[in-house]
């Protein structure tokens, strides 16, 4: 072949979702080009905005049919789960289809510790719930992580169901009736005295919007920090705080030796072994860390508003949604995974009016994504780079140009 044919770069037409990826790259590049101080400032502003979001109740975004604070809580819970599952699927490349099992273990540990068996306060039960889930992750991982790929997916799928069915049959865990009256976390500030004193340290009014004109809403206030059945916003704050901590930890681990070992194992397990990476150990670590974060999220879920969990709270479908969140967002990129979790939890609530068509639309959206952007909305930049090269090579090979 002449040099002219090999050097021609194939024109790869970009679809809207791929353009979104390029736009995101641009945003990241511009952010990275900023001086350190401005970056810090931007991060602080963004975090503050996230905390304030349910109070601001911005039009369009706000769900009017259903309590916006509650929606934000479940969005944050999903984003946190996606962040945990991203370690397992995105970093270590282990397809875990039974993640809801860990979510359930976290929730049930909290439920058991804080109700009629022991009556522990929530914040004491939380770390133990995380630890128990982590140990569960190791117990499940030790025998199963020796199988690879599809086999692992099937084993984990079974695990999710086993947990649910076991709980359903153990009286001590409430069986099918579940555990109710799981206490809320202790109020920080003055204890609320119903019916007139809402308690807390101080009250924060919400905003209300008249078209695009905001005004203070004195009727709806959030009491800082009262965790109760009425207002989900303090829960949301609690969860957001946990998420930020997890995010910081995630960054540290990903950039460390452990993160590189995961990446090598994901890309080529045999080659990783040849480099001296004890892949089993690192896979187990990813499994345990992912499980711990799932347990953390489950623990919050158990003590949230309703204070009620039952085996029906942890269906197989939830596992699928968790995986969907990570894949949709872009597995391997923590921001992608969180975006995926946010979308999967938020969109159905926002469009509740079309509730009958929810699953249909969700399925369609997944199909479109699979066709246009199988690597997810915001995959890690290196995945996208590799895909682009792959497409170009395919195109060259299709034209019969052999490159060597």
């Amino acid at each position, binding site marked *: 072949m002449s040099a002219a044919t090999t050097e021609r770069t194939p024109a790869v037409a970009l679809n809207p979702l791929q353009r979104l990826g390029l736009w995101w790259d641009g945003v990241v590049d511009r952010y990275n080009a900023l001086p350190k101080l401005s970056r810090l400032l931007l991060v602080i502003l963004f975090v503050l905005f996230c905390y304030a979001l349910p109070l601001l109740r911005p039009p369009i975004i706000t769900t009017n049919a259903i309590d916006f604070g509650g929606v934000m809580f479940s969005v944050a819970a999903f984003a946190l789960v996606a962040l945990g599952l991203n370690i397992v699927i995105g970093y270590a490349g282990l397809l875990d289809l039974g993640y809801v099992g860990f979510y359930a273990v976290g929730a049930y540990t909290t439920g058991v510790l804080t109700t009629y068996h022991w009556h522990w306060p929530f914040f004491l039960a939380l770390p133990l719930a995380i630890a128990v889930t982590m140990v569960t992750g190791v117990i499940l991982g030790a025998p199963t992580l020796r199988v690879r790929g599809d086999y692992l997916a099937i084993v984990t799928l079974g695990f999710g169901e086993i947990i649910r069915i076991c709980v359903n049959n153990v009286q001590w865990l409430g069986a099918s009736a579940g555990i109710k009256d799981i206490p809320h976390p202790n109020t920080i500030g003055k204890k609320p005295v119903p019916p007139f004193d809402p308690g807390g340290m101080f009250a924060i009014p919400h905003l209300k919007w008249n078209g695009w004109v905001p005004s203070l809403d004195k009727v709806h206030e959030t009491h800082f920090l009262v965790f109760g059945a009425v207002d989900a916003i303090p829960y949301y704050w609690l969860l957001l705080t946990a998420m930020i901590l997890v995010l910081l930890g995630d960054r540290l681990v990903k950039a460390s030796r452990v993160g*590189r070992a995961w990446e*090598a194992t994901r890309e*080529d397990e*045999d080659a990783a072994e*040849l480099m001296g990476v*004890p892949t089993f150990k690192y896979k187990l670590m990813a499994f345990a860390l992912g499980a711990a974060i799932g347990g953390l999220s489950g623990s919050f879920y158990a003590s949230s508003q309703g204070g009620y969990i039952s085996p029906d709270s942890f269906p197989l479908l939830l596992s699928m949604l968790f995986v969907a969140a990570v894949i949709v967002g872009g597995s391997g990129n923590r921001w992608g995974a969180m975006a995926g979790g946010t979308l999967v939890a938020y969109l159905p609530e926002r469009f509740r009016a079309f509730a009958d068509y929810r699953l249909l639309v969700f399925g369609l959206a997944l199909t479109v994504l699979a066709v246009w952007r199988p690597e997810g909305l915001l995959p890690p930049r290196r995945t996208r780079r590799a895909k682009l090269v792959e497409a170009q090579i395919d195109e060259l090979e299709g034209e019969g140009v052999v490159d060597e």
Partner: protein
Amino acid sequence: MLLEVEGLCVNYGHIEAIRDVTFGVEEGTVATLIGANGAGKTTTLKTLSGLRKVRAGAVRFDGKDITHAPPYQRVLLGISQSPEGRGCFPGMTVLENLDMGAFLRKDRKSAAYRADLDRVFDLFPRLKERERQAAGSMSGGEQQMLAIGRALMAKPRLLLLDEPSMGLAPKLIQQIFTIIGEINQQGTTVLLVEQNAAQALKRADTAHILETGEIVRSGSGRELSGDDSVKAAYLGGDL
């Protein structure tokens, strides 16, 4: 003997992949295993690196029995492999790949590490040019260089090379073999598995021919390349 393999048997299920394989590699030499597809060459190397379980027999490295040692312990002892089909990490850059090669080294911030990196770049100047490029986007020859360079970053005493010439253009094959010779001269013992028997025999101090999982001939590289039956079977010589 740096490496001693004695009566090695490895199975895949009920199928015997290699049977009673015995050979040794003297320190400072180049040894080669040649043979056709499916003769058990790759299985032998994978077993030496600890990726395959041994059914019977023993492997000793520098006098130590490593028959059942896990792969990372063998890397620590000084066995490093460049796998068949290159096995670079495609999403990682060249530098990151080389860094993975040094995964178990504790001196990754030291001058010695920099020196080793420079040594790899001296051997393969192309890698220096492509330092920040994703390995998956490089040509086959470049990936082969990277795989060898990455194995060297572990500071091996014994370098295992699995078909470094596979899928490469003749000119590149020549170049790769010259570099293997250079690596050996710098003091690293090399065990080379090849289908390209002509090149391998030319470089090797000792050679072994594998046929359906068994060693059928052993000798010096020169001896075997002069042998008529070997010529007929592996070198495509005149019949």
